């Protein structure tokens, strides 16, 4: 038992003496491929302006394009704004005649006689006796439907008394005046007014003021009677007073503004565009602005048309209303009507002009029937402006124009090379395209290449003369809408010093040129479309047959790494190279400030392929380059960029090597690192 207990105690002691647990960690050696790629020239040089072409012997030709001239003449045919103004005053406004009538019927008269309706029933027959002073009365004449007040500079008032009664009247005296006033406007004295007849008296209204409330007083009117003859009694028979106000020339008034045409005009708007002769324009931007100012207290209506401006066959027109002005004030309205997208016929109403737009404008007032204040000072001021027209397309003669320009073009694609190279052949084409419907001449005055070391001026007899290019061709309703006219000049090392310009490894190309539109005097019709102009580009074709040493390619790329627990690492670059070019590769890890964190250098190089006597590859060569890190953890964690520096040497070094389309370089990046596991 004692021994048993001792043993048990020992076991417990053993369990209690646990090792302080520390999580185990260890280093492992990991080697793994990271990435691979196949490089050929088409993916080494990822640039839309560099291409490669394969020649008949499968060798490659580098084709490099650079645009040196790109000019359009959009500003040539901007049509400046033009305004027309119409100012109409009230003095020219016509008022129509105003007619007011008042009647005294037979029924009215008989009703005023005692037992009249019994003695003289309607429809009956009776002898009308003579009466005196039966018609004496004052009755109102209401003209407020037409005016409340009118002061005339000129006009006439016709007072007509028409006897519709079945009996003659005599000693008729009638006075007409403004209600409540004593001075008469007109007085009529008619000794005898037979039944069925009328008498008219006219009075000038010049300098007079009439009010809408008039009154007429029958001072005297005796009924002659019909004795001994009975007559039919018709209560609707009447004695009628008719007042006609005519030939109105208003100075001021409060009246119903009559229907009135304010203006109705056809206008031809002519644009000054120098020697350009436009016949038709498709509008990119443009419109008509109407500014109306009025003191008339009624609505002014304006209609504007440009018949020769259409969209889908529909002419451009608009309708605009200028509201009534406030009393004692004026109203101003501005509206803009856009005609972008419309096509304008610039040849006028009859198609016999150029640079013109034919317009129709009309302004009028429809009487509202509302009585308003009217004054001779009232006026309508109307300005219609055709805004600046920027054409999308224009047809006609585009005129002559000369452009002189100098440009410095970035040519850095070749300046990234350092080292020496000699090109066996080179051909440079100057391709000029004219997308304008007009002839053009391009004269290159100066063409030079500038590097850090040299400036070389281009020499060739071919540039002694301007490059003449014909007019482009329009393709209506099809794509592309313009077929440019082209011209090509070919320069090589025989007819120029173009090879020296390229071998100079310039960082810029300088071009001084002159562009002439319609250089001759033929004034042929053509066209000009927006964003279409004249372009010239250099197309450099270099058969890849060259010899070079220490040609240095440099590039910097952005990278991002987040790697932990890595110690002691190296990269191995496995290559299979079929280019007859060896390469020394250096990599520099840079931080965000472009400071070098670590330099990755290898003692090995990418070996050139094995070649035959003609420099053509017969077998590719494998190489293994090792790049060791000194401090991978810190370097990769801070690394934001990797700068690559590749030095190329053609092999054999003393002969031209030709690059064929099937040449490529397989690259595989392998990482070998010490990784700490936990």
């Amino acid at each position, binding site marked *: *038992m004692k021994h*048993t207990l001792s043993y*048990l105690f*020992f*076991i417990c002691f*053993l*369990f209690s003496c646990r*090792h*302080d*647990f*520390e*999580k*185990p*960690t*260890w280093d*492992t*050696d*990991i*080697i*793994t*491929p*990271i*990435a*691979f*790629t196949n*490089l050929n020239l088409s*993916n080494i040089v*990822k640039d839309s302006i560099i291409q490669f072409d394969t020649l008949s012997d499968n060798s490659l030709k580098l084709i490099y394009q650079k645009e040196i001239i790109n000019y359009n003449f959009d500003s040539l045919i901007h049509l400046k704004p033009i305004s027309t103004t119409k100012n109409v005053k009230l003095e020219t406004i016509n008022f129509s005649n105003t007619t007011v009538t008042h009647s005294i019927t037979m029924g009215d008269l008989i009703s005023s006689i005692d037992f009249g309706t019994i003695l003289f029933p309607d429809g009956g027959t009776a002898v009308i006796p003579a009466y005196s002073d039966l018609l004496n009365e004052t009755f109102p004449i209401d003209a407020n439907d037409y005016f409340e007040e009118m002061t005339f500079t000129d006009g006439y008032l016709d007072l007509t008394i028409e006897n519709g009664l079945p009996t003659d009247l005599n000693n008729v005296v009638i006075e007409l005046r403004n209600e409540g006033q004593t001075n008469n406007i007109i007085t009529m004295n008619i000794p005898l007014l037979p039944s069925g007849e009328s008498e008219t008296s006219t009075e000038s209204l010049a300098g007079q003021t009439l009010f809408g409330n008039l009154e007429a007083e029958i001072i005297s009117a005796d009924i002659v009677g019909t004795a001994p003859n009975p007559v039919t009694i018709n209560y609707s028979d009447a004695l009628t007073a008719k007042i006609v106000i005519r030939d109105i020339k208003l100075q001021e008034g409060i009246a119903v503004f009559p229907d009135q045409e304010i203006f109705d005009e056809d206008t031809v708007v002519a644009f000054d565009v120098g020697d350009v002769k436009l016949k038709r324009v498709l509008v990119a931007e443009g419109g008509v602005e109407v500014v109306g100012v009025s003191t008339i207290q009624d609505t002014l209506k304006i209609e504007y048309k440009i018949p020769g401006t259409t969209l889908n066959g529909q002419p451009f027109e608009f309708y605009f209303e200028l509201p009534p002005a406030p009393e004692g004030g004026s109203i101003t309205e501005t509206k803009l009507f856009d005609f972008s997208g419309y096509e304008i016929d610039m040849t006028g109403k009859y198609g016999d002009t150029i640079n013109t737009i034919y317009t129709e404008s009309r302004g009028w007032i429809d009487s509202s029937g509302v009585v308003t204040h009217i004054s001779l000072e009232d006026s309508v001021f109307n300005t219609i402006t055709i805004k600046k027209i920027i054409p999308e397309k224009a047809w006609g003669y585009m005129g002559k124009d000369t452009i002189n320009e100098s440009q410095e073009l970035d040519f850095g694609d070749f300046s990234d090379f350092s080292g020496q190279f000699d090109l066996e052949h080179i051909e440079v084409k100057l391709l000029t395209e004219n997308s304008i419907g007009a002839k053009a001449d391009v004269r290159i005055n100066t063409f030079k290449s500038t590097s850090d070391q040299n400036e070389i001026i281009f020499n060739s007899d071919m540039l002694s003369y301007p490059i003449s290019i014909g007019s482009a061709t329009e393709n209506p309703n099809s794509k592309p809408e313009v077929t440019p006219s082209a011209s090509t000049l070919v320069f090589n090392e025989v007819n120029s010093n173009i090879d020296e310009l390229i071998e100079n490894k310039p960082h810029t190309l300088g071009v001084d040129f002159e562009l002439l539109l319609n250089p001759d005097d033929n004034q042929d019709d053509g066209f000009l479309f927006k964003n279409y102009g004249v372009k010239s580009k250099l197309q450099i074709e270099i058969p890849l047959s060259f010899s070079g040493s220490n040609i240095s390619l440099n*590039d910097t*790329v*952005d*990278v*991002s*790494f*987040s*790697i932990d627990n890595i110690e002691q690492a190296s990269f*191995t670059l*496995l290559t299979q190279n079929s280019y007859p070019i060896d390469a020394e590769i250096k990599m520099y890890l840079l931080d965000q400030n472009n400071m070098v964190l670590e330099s990755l250098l290898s003692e090995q190089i990418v070996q050139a392929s094995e070649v035959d006597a003609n420099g053509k590859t017969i077998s590719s060569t494998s190489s*293994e380059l090792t790049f060791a890190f000194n401090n991978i953890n810190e370097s990769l964690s801070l690394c934001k960029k*990797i700068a*690559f520096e590749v030095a190329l040497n053609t092999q054999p070094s003393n002969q031209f090597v030709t690059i064929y389309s099937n040449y490529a370089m397989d*690259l*595989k*990046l*392998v990482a*070998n690192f010490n*990784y700490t*596991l936990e």
Partner: protein
Amino acid sequence: MPKYFSILLVALTLSAYSQESSLEFNTDIGLFNSSINSQLLSQSYGFLDAKEKSNIIDALKAENNIAFESNNAFLYQNKKGWGLSLSNHIGAYATYSKSLVELSLLGNTPFKGENLKLDPIDITAFNYSQLDFSYQWSKKIQTSVGLILGHHFLDATVNEAHFYTDPQAAFINYQVDYEAHFTDTTDLSQKPFSKNGYGAVFGISYKDSISNGEIELSINDLGFIGWNDKTSNMHIESQYEFEGINVDDFISFSDSIIRNEIDSLQSDLQINIKESYSWQLPTKFRLSINQPLYNSFIQGYSLSIEYRINLYDIPKLTLEVHKKMKQHRLALGYHIGGFEHNGFQFSYLYAGEKTHFHFYTKQFNAGIPSVSYGLHIGIGIKRVFSSS
């Protein structure tokens, strides 16, 4: 007399035929390792240098095991021969290859140009509770039948796994064929006894006298657990060769491209189907022979051979000698085979009139680190109510 005591001792140890009513509680827990002893294990904390890694690798065999077991049981035995027990069993068994450890510790650089065979890799882990009813039909035969509530389960087998690194590391490839089934583990820590499956189990034992001793044959844990339809089932056959990422623009590469590739591989290797799965319990077959010895120092010995399906590659052979001192019984044994490393085992039993106390260990080497390949302890307490 010593003969019968020996027989009784064995019988008590085995808890087979009972002539008494009793209630007992047994618990045991153990961690087993077939290759790495405690001494080496104690050196394997913190940073492992090259020598320590080498020591670990040298200690390994082609196939190695590591296991954990925990068993707890309440047992009521009636003198009329029937018994009822409630138990919980947790087990985790893993087999791994030496190549796998080498690759993990050293990385793949030392194995360039070598096709590493990483299989076999097997993992079986389970946690289930069991309610058994047993009956002693006769002196010779006892059977038990039980119901199982499964809590958690994992069974993964890598049938084939190869890993190869090109001598220039131009490519790496692997080939893997594995199968795995596992229950939902999202609630593993919060609900260790969640209901994820149901099963049944059967056991039988036959005892008979031979010569002066006794022979017993038993089959236990003959049964299955049907895990529910949330069980993940994977059967992956995959072959992949990695030669780096093909980058069109070689110099626009970043490590995120690698990570994306790894994520893509991971998803391919983790495709699984949720459906029920039926798992056969690791049935235990046991044959034991107990013989008395007419010796004043050792009263008897027993030889047993035990095999567990899907766990043991080779059966476990145990030889035990027994000593009785009044109410105290001691047994010292040695086992080979099975899942753990060869080693000594020890048992102590105090058999009082009413109370029995049992203490035992299958890793009696634990006190000597250089030969200690695990830890194990078992305790049993039994209260006898009456005997026939």
